[in-house]
């Protein structure tokens, strides 16, 4: 990488057209001077021109010669590039399953742009994509993409034409902005309250977290509207504490059953209104990361309620793809060398080590057959608590009592139960 940079810097600083341009300028100067001379005295014309011949020609030749360093520099840079990418083939177009679904890709991109908050770009794109709908191309698994096009179109246009999604993400960014930069909880609390039931059913305590933060803000007097007076109210005037108390009376009622312990804590802290910093409750009140945590939780809940993952799937998938590519290409070259075909079309032939945050589902690989469980071959738990795949169970047991492959326990296959990971 460093030699490439050095080459480019060389090209940029010296090996460029500027020298040739100055040569040309020199020739121009010569001609201009000669012209002035001839114009002043016509009789000198033959002599002046004859004298000009040689230098003029030479300057132009110099201009030509000065190109050489550029040529050499570019060549060197090109060679360095070749070296850099010698064993890195351009990814080929094999195994491209996506060309037959351009409208799905377009939809994914539109949603990606929206969730990144790139509303301007998203609307430009939706406009352009609607004006020029994409042309699907046949691929291995979808030889005739036009057959499926109609439902794909419906699917794709479901979001393409709706401004609802954009509005929702605009709301999300508005609330997040208020949270992070204005430290204003009101829009977030209102949002959570409107979806109180849905959130509760998910086991999310976002609403309470938000309210608790509001309580703390009032207590320490750190809300935007009381910010100016925060300094002196802190230890002299219990106004902050009182408003926090009032807030708790007014808002905490619905939470009493679920968050009794937390509420008792908050109420208990009221007794320390003069020196909360030294009280046992200090960590509740002086937690710098609280805001970021709440913003993060809000972002996740918001996306989940829309059925979307919190981070952009396009981003995760593209990143995982870049991590996976070296393995896949290596596998391809090995297969080409050995002239083998890859027999299972629905499973990759190599294992790709991804960092653990790229694992979203639990994976069950049968310890007997080494196959991943599927809907038709689900994991089965024997009474001893060991799990094997359904097909393995059938093969091992032949429908009579059999010994677990992992412990001395014997059981009948009908006692095994299907489990879901």
């Amino acid at each position: 990488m460093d030699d490439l940079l050095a080459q480019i810097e060389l090209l940029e600083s010296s090996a460029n057209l500027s020298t040739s341009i100055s040569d040309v300028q020199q020739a121009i100067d010569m001609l201009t001077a000669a012209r002035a001379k001839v114009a002043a005295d016509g009789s000198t014309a033959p002599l002046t021109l004859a004298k000009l011949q040689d230098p003029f020609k030479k300057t132009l030749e110099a201009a030509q010669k000065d190109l050489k360093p550029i040529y050499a520099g570019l060549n060197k840079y090109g060679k360095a590039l070749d070296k850099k990418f010698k064993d890195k083939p351009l990814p080929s177009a094999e195994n491209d399953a996506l060309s037959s679904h351009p409208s799905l890709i377009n939809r994914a991109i539109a949603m990606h742009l929206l969730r990144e908050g790139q509303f301007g770009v998203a609307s430009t794109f939706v406009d352009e994509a609607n004006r020029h709908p994409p042309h699907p191309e046949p691929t291995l698994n979808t030889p005739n993409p036009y057959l499926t096009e109609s439902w794909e179109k419906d699917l794709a246009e479901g979001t393409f034409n709706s401004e609802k999604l954009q509005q929702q993400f605009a709301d999300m960014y508005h609330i997040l902005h208020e949270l992070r930069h204005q430290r204003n909880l009101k829009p977030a609390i209102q949002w959570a309250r409107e979806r109180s039931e849905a959130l509760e059913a998910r086991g999310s305590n976002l609403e309470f977290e938000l309210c608790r933060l509001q309580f703390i803000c009032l207590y320490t007097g750190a809300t935007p509207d009381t910010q100016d007076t925060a300094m002196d109210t802190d230890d002299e005037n219990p106004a902050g504490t009182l408003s926090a108390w009032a807030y708790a009376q007014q808002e905490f009622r619905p939470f009493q059953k679920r968050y009794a312990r937390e509420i008792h804590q908050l109420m208990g802290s009221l007794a320390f209104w003069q020196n909360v910093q030294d009280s046992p409750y200090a960590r509740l009140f002086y937690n710098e990361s609280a805001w970021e945590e709440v913003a993060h939780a809000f972002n996740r809940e918001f996306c989940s309620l829309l059925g979307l993952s919190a981070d952009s799937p396009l981003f995760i998938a593209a990143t995982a793809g870049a991590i996976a590519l070296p393995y896949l290409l290596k596998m391809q070259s090995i297969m080409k060398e050995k002239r083998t075909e890859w027999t299972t079309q629905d499973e990759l032939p190599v294992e790709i080590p991804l960092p653990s945050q790229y694992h979203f589902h639990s994976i069950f690989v049968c310890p007997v057959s080494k196959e991943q469980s599927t809907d038709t071959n689900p994991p089965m738990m024997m009474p001893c608590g060991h799990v094997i795949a359904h097909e393995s169970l059938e093969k091992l047991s032949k429908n009579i009592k059999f010994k677990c492959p992992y412990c001395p326990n014997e059981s009948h296959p009908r006692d095994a139960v299907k489990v879901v990971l």
Partner: protein
Amino acid sequence: MAELTSTKLNAESHLLLDQPLLRMPYELSRRNFKNAQRVIEHASTNLPSTLTAATKAASPSSPLTHLDTLLTKMHTLKRKLETLHAEENKLHRASKARLHHLQDLYAVHSLVDVKYEEWSRTRLSRLLVDYLLREGYTASAAHLAQSKKIEELVDVDAFVACRGIEMSLREGRATGPALEWCKEHGKELKRGGGMLEFELRLQQYIEMVRQGHEAGAEGSDGEGGGGGGEKKLVEARAHAKKYLSLSGDFELMGRAAGMLAYRPWDEVEPYASLYSPSRWDHLANLFVYTHHTLYSLPPRPLLHIALSAGLSALKTPACHSAYTPSSTNAASATTTVCPICSTELNELARNVPYALHTKSIVEDGPVVLPNGRIYGSERLRVFNEKVGTEEGWVRDPMGGLAGEKWRESEVRKVYVM
């Protein structure tokens, strides 16, 4: 046996997708340099002789006019060179920015580093711009590049030029711009041995013959003979002799000659397919293919390549399963939605193979509920604490607050190997 998970980042092998990033400005620099070379060469062979002519000119006033034309020419030369120089600078700047961008990756050693995430986001934006440009969504591409401030990392102009020529073939049905492009890239094309120029010339011939036949048909309807048509056909023959006869493909020559006898509306093969308008699409595709090969651009959008690999690497049988897996579901706040299960990619991932795993991946301390659902014991505890289940009871996170609940004693340990 490969490791199941790895967070080590090997920058060297990670650059597979990034070769075009550096190749493109390099190829453009070379083209730019060649243009400069041609301009200067042209000047230094022609201009000195102009000066000689001026010297030899007899009349007293002509030296001045000669000098003036010479000066104008020199100024044009300088202007041309300056334009090329500006372009050269722009390309070098782009190359440098790209090198710095790639070098940033070498400073990151872990895939879980925040810096890697940042870098990867920029890369995604690059890939998106590349995709948008290839699909012809030029305005979106430019807009995205601008808003992400990655103009130096993407080749909007080059793709716009390519798109322009492609559309001139596909929709404008004109061979001019494409032939012009062939002329500019003559040397490389000759080395590559592509058929683009020949196919374009053949198309010109076909169009001439078509016009000839059409004019002939009109002519025979009226009083005057088909003189115009006849003339056009003769022209076509001359064109074929000049451009096509050198190919050595006698079978094609025979077919081309046959076209002089069979008219477009005769619908006789193999001539009908030569007359067919679908040839324009073929030409457009051939042009794009030739263009991309010449500039070391992969034939498919880089986004496709990255995405198909990524979808497969992430996909599990659970992603399109009829049963909601316990490990991830949208109904529980203790899990995140899997990107493949997310609306954006779910349908897209339907046709790709799923990832190979040789070992089970389960949460720590798996326990099974009486309904067969397996959870990590820690996650089950956290969930039940959050929803405030009564002491001694356990609720299935699947159903949220209204989920089934059992006594703690009914929860069993499960062994997944």
